[in-house]
């Protein structure tokens, strides 16, 4: 007899198993793949995708979607660079401002979606155009950022023993996943989101604050995307309006790979981290191979995506048939 708790986490364990197999396969195929640096890089290089994906997970929990996250990352990065480099403002002032803007846009979209029952797909598409357009309006060029805080962050790493150095971005990703996990699975808000995605009518009758939670989740996701934009600006020490182009689709893909149902109502934040790592491992393996042409890269990514989604589909069917 499997305990209920374990049973509920089996899909997650299966996804984890897939990740290990994938990583193992790459480690066998490529010399030097199995190294602490590769693992740390998986976290660091995918930090802003991962941070955005955590917020996206929560939105998808509630049965929604947010196409604006990539554009918000672009906006935040150029906004930060413009103020820090162009106006000489301190990041400590600019960062909260940027996060505020992200949250504000999210709140606006959430309010429209909730109050007027508008399709999230359309409203967040408008949000995407708005954020990207404003970003380019600020500056079409990329702008470098030189500031002691940026240098310090870029050079910071947590040394674990001799050879393992974990950079700030990787730590932040883990922190955000941790926070996302707690919010999603150990707060009333998080459980309310899953309830809304599972059955909105029931959630209303059960006395859950549906409207508040829905607006809050888009707000939170907007703030998360802005945070991802700040991480992107640190990662490159620069701001660039076209940063994060198309990232929303990657984020949706990793959330789905992580086992969260796009229809809402079922999923796990830890799965999203696994999704990010699977996505990252595919890319890392392609880089280690180094022989794929531009087009084969896209085809292989598409094919692997298909394989995972089919696999997950059959897993879900298996669970559903009980």
């Amino acid at each position, binding site marked *: 007899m499997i305990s209920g708790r374990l049973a509920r986490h089996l899909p997650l364990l299966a996804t984890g198993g897939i990740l290990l197999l994938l990583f193992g396969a790459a480690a066998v195929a490529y010399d030097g793949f199995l190294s602490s640096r590769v693992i740390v890089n998986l976290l660091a*290089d995918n930090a802003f995708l991962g941070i955005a994906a955590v917020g996206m997970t929560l939105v998808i929990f509630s049965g929604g979607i947010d196409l604006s996250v990539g554009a918000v990352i672009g906006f935040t990065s150029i906004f930060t660079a413009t103020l820090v480099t162009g106006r000489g403002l301190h990041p400590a002032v600019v960062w909260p401002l940027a996060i505020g803007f992200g949250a504000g846009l999210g709140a606006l979209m959430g309010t429209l979606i909730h109050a007027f029952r508008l399709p999230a797909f359309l409203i967040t598409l408008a949000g995407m155009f708005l954020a990207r357009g404003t970003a380019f309006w600020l500056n079409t060029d*990329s702008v470098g950022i*030189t500031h002691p805080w940026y240098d310090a962050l*870029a050079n910071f790493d947590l040394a674990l023993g001799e050879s393992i150095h974990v950079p700030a971005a990787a730590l932040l990703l883990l922190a955000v996943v941790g926070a996302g996990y707690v919010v999603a699975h150990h707060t009333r808000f998080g459980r309310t989101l899953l309830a809304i995605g599972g059955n909105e009518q029931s959630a209303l009758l059960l006395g859950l604050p549906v409207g508040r939670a829905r607006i809050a989740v888009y707000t939170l996701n907007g703030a998360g995307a802005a945070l991802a934009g700040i991480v992107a600006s640190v990662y*490159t*020490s620069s701001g660039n309006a076209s940063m994060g182009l198309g990232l929303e689709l990657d984020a949706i893909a990793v959330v789905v790979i992580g086992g969260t149902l796009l229809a809402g109502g079922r999923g796990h934040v830890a799965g999203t981290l696994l999704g990010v790592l699977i996505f990252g491992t595919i890319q890392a393996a392609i880089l280690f191979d180094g022989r794929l042409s531009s087009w084969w*890269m896209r085809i292989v990514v598409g094919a692997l995506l298909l*394989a995972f989604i089919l696999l997950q589909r059959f897993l879900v069917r*298996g*669970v559903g048939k009980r």
Partner: protein
Amino acid sequence: MFTLITRQPFLFLAAAALLTVTGLFGAAPKKTLKVGFAQTGAESAWRTANSDSMKAEAAKRGIDLKFSDGQGKQENQIRAVRSFITQGVDAIVIAPIVETGWDPVLREAKRAKIPVILTDRTIQTTDASLFVCFIGSDFYEEGKMAADWLAKAVSGKGNIVELQGTPGSAPANERRKAFADGLAKYPSLKIIDAQSGNFERSGGKQVMEAFLKKHGKAINVVYAHNDDMALGAAQAIEEAGLKPGKDITLVSIDAIGEAVKAVAAGRINCTVECSPLFGPKVYDTIAKVLAGEKVPKKSFNQDELFDATNAAKALPTRQY
């Protein structure tokens, strides 16, 4: 739950399939020179010719080239460079998508004592020791050449409309700025309108149609950020009953085969190119750097400009 367990064989099957997919690429040969190349993407024929040159030359010299396509995103390029460092390549070549944002990753490369060579475009950095050298063509230079040629051709006077590339993309930014800087010396040459045609032929055609209706005969010159848009604009001009190359002067950049042909035929007046065939020069430079020789910090690949004087002659030898 039990269904899940019975599904496990399927999981293993899938994993096995993955193994085969990744295994297909196999292990790389050892003890040869290993170079990582972070290309920007595959956004144009020029870029593909550039990638092909790097690959073909590597194959010829027996170099193990790790090629990465950034798909137009700096974050992908940075990821690639970090991976090259992890893989312990002997040298890294980058064709930067944007000018800023490279310091952190280049510092990592420097710490790992891997020489970095920039091609195609330089970067903005406070620490020039982060890269060994820069081998250009740069988009800025191209824009400047176009401006200078134009000033001479129309004797410093005229109304220009500009067909810009995709907003925010580096070639669009550079070619716009360089052209504007180049024109600064000629106050009577004015850009009267500018729009983005997204580097697409249909975009160039569409924008040009609108410009022709809006400004009518006031337009003397079209400056297009690439040949595709210039060719589209030429079509639009013809359809409006004017003669491209005569009634309106067309200046563009890239020198793809079709454009050089158009120059020879007089439909386009001038197209500027920097050769994409970087391979030999890049690997020569790497060899020198690894042997401890000194290399110039900045060098340029051969620039060419095609106008009525030389286009017809150059046609038979064009490689792309």
